[in-house]
């Protein structure tokens, strides 16, 4: 016996079927209207969380994009300043070479060169005090609101900044410094030839001048403050800084212009030193560019037409030239570092562009609606609903009462 169906039951079943078809249609219609497959987290909880994460990553990546733009503009500004520094140093070098013509120049000529050098020193100081578009000092390290370089009463340019290096995040794992501190650019220039620095005692009476020297065997070099002393006009000895009695590390007969070698380094002394004249050979530390220029200006302003004065000047000019070359090399190496940072930014930019496409694609895959399949489903459901409606209206007309 087939199960009996009640009249109300039949119409309930038919109505329920139509209601559920309509609910499905409404959901599909909403998806089609919004173009999204996942509208609320409950539609697909796992995808929903993934979508949020992707959107977060997009927003993060946009911020890194802004960071990169900012660092690039700051580094470009720095690059310009470094280029200007190079130009100043070049001019200073020319003037120094010009001043080295000790034979033809008078104290007065040198004084006029010193006048131009003083202007160059001012120019260099101004570069060190440059501000960025934000009104902050570029070369102050972290102390961006303190003027980094100031001239004191003694004519010395002092650094008031610090050695801070501000970093900016350019992607999830990389940070790039957006500047160099003034210390790194202008101050931390290796003194002398980078291993040692020579000097002539101001009290020297002879006309002996010392060359900047060179390293012959780095392994044999023992860093110490050495003194080269002329025991008489033709003999010298080199002592270290041992106390109370310095040890003699080398000694010999003096020949003007020939190399004096000890502990893996060599220097040349030329001219006629007097007994008791002393030269220093100290390990390199660092010397700032302003001090280099300051020393040069002082040397050129010092009367040096006497033989001993000439020797002092020669030593000073030789040292200055070496120091200027060091400064130039130093600025170039800082510029190279800036260039490398800019290259890092470019590759970070490229990677960010790739990431952006990837994020967008994944996001679209997860969130967006596949219109083709959605519309197909919509059509199927529409046909289903129409069929249900048509069949219900036909069947419900059937009744035995029609025939009584």
């Amino acid at each position: 016996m087939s199960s009996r169906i009640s009249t109300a039951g039949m119409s309930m079943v038919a109505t329920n079927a139509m209601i559920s078809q309509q609910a499905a249609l409404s959901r599909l219609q909403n998806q089609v209207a919004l173009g999204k497959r996942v509208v609320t987290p409950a539609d697909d909880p796992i995808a929903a969380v993934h979508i949020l994460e992707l959107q977060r990553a997009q927003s993060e990546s946009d911020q890194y994009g802004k960071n990169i733009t900012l660092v690039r503009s700051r580094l470009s500004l720095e690059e310009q300043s470094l280029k200007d520094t190079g130009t100043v140093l070049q001019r200073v070098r020319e003037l120094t070479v010009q001043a080295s013509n000790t034979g033809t120049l008078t104290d007065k000529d040198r004084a006029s060169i010193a006048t131009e050098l003083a202007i160059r020193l001012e120019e260099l100081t101004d570069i060190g005090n440059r501000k960025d578009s934000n009104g902050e000092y570029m070369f102050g390290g972290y102390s961006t609101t303190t003027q980094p370089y100031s001239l004191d009463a003694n004519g010395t340019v002092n650094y008031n900044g610090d050695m801070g290096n501000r970093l900016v995040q350019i992607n999830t794992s990389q940070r790039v410094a957006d500047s160099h501190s003034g210390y790194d650019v202008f101050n931390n220039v290796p003194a002398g030839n980078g291993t040692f620095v020579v000097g002539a005692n101001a009290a020297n009476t002879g006309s002996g001048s010392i060359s900047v020297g060179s390293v012959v065997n780095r392994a044999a070099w023992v860093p110490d403050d050495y003194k080269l002393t002329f025991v008489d006009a033709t003999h010298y000895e080199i002592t270290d800084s041992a106390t109370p009695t310095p040890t003699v590390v080398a000694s010999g007969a003096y020949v003007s212009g020939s190399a004096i070698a000890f502990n893996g380094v060599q220097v040349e002394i030329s001219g006629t030193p007097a007994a008791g004249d002393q030269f220093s050979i100290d390990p390199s530390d660092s010397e700032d560019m302003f001090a280099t220029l300051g020393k040069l200006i002082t040397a050129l302003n010092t009367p040096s037409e006497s033989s001993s004065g000439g020797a002092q000047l020669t030593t000073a000019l030789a040292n200055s030239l070496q120091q200027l070359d060091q400064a130039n090399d130093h600025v170039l190496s800082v510029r190279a570092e800036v260039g490398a940072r800019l290259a890092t930014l470019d590759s970070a930019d490229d990677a960010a562009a790739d990431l952006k496409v990837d994020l967008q694609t994944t996001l679209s895959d997860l969130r967006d609606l596949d219109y083709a399949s959605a519309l197909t489903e919509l059509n199927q459901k529409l046909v289903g609903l129409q069929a249900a409606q048509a069949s219900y209206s036909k069947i419900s007309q059937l009744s035995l009462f029609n025939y009584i």
Partner: protein
Amino acid sequence: MADLMNVGVSGLLAFQRALSTTSHNIANVSTPGYSRQIAELMTRQADVSGSGYIGNGVDVSTVTRSYNDFIASQVRSSSSSLSYFTSMSTQANRINNLLGDSTTGLTASLQSFINSVQGVANTPTSIPARQTLLSQAQTLTQRLQSFDDNLQSFDKQVNNQIDSEAATISQLAQNIAQLNQQIVSARGQSGGQPPNDLLDQRDRLVDELSTHLNVSTVQQSDGSLNVFVGSGQNLVVGASATRLVAGQDAFDATRKTLVLQSATGATDVTASLTGGSLGGTLDFRTQILDPARNSIGRLAVALADVMNEQHGKGMDLEGNLGGDFFSVGGVDVRENSGNTGLGTVAATRSDLSKLTAYDYVLKSTGTGWALTRADTGAAVPMTGTGTATDPFVADGLSIVVGGTATTGDSFLIQPTRTAASSMEVVIDDPEKIAIASPIVAAATAANKGAAKIGGTEVLDASDANLRTDATITFTDATHYTISGSATVYNYASGSNIDANGWRVKITGVPAAGDSFTVKSNANGTGDNSNALKLADVLNQPVLNGGTTSLNAAAGQFISSVGVATNQAKSSAAAQEVVYDDSIAAQQSVSGVNLDEEAAKLLQYQQAYQAAAQIIKIAQSLFDTLISATGR
């Protein structure tokens, strides 16, 4: 002849009643809860004669209703489940929709906040950038708060719903009790005949009751029906009904519970009521709403903790150490209203990584205290003794007990429940945002070695000497002293050097006499190192034992709500099928089929006409006899 007449009349009466019953069925084809009725026909007692038993006609013995108790109980249990899941999914869906908007959602606000920290890191002295950071912090706080506000309003609606559910259920119970009384008396008046329409009415009320909560019924011999709820508590017994009313939670007077009020007293049945729209509402509260509020609170706590700690290690534009950035609500400790002792409990959050989204109950055992999860009742192990110096420690909480509690006294501890609602951005002056490091390390210009200093980090911002100038001096390439103190430390390139609450790293080979200074960064307005750490720390895994970052926790929270909603929705859909099936089964037994009734109408009409013919035949037989004998 008289016999024939009687038989004919019995047929007329019986078919008249059968036709009435059929018409009653037709008339009630659309009445909800109506069970079709059947007039049961039965032969009358036959007369004995020498030639056997002679039939005496027909009677309607009774009118029964077509009803199946087993199917009815199936309908009730499935409608109870259906309205449970429907209620659950409807309410969960509201939270779900709240979280759905991805542009204004939690993770988006969190990332915007981190982005604004990056913005300040890019331009540490820029007041507009700092102002942006503050307003993003406000936005994030407001976002958390508005979620919490919404959840709180859901909580209030749950309370209202409990009120109205309790009233409805009490009313239904009252009506069932009245019908019980009517049915018993109707049966008495009719000598035990079933009062079908009253039975239908009562069953319909029980059906309706089942959509509100799970009930069980027991049929009594006098015709009344007893109804039980929860774990067998009486709701209706015979003609008397117990009232279900909304009560107050022992720990929280604003939280509604359900209490059965009988003549013998009141019983809290909140935990034992299941199923139906009431069960769905109660479970929505404990399974979705409470954890959601706790999770939002936990996010707020984590954000504030992480941010405050790192912010305190930084220096603001005015050169001062950073203060707290966010403030959040503390741990809520609620005393049981039934406590008789004078015990006190104070709880604080001590370990963010162990903090959970659960609530706890701390109960005095007489010999000590025991901690259990509020939702499951599972025991939670504690260490410590509960004193201020050695507090109980469990799940990231420190609990200090005081006073004298009576055995059985209990306290509800809610670690994060109200943290978000009272969350605030403490800093209102953009200059007070600590973006720089309070200390700066530098190499002395005259250094002759190749060593470099870096990796500056604040370990303990509360160290009094943090910003006192300190000098690290190398006595030779492998040994150093700090600030002239006599202790000589061994140097290894890249290892940590800790002093005065800071840490630095020196790398490379120093020369004897080289020195490095660590000093106050009071001029370092352009320093962004603390901002970088802030941005970083917000992405660090700090929750769930250091495995989950804030972003991930926000994602997990959203997915848990999504999963719960999705589950409730699909369960409701599945239950709907079960419900429809059981309704179809019930309709198959009890429903009226018009075609069937039409056929019966014809059948009984024919039988009635035939019975009338019997009377006509009896008449004509009588006439025949009269005319035959009257001549």
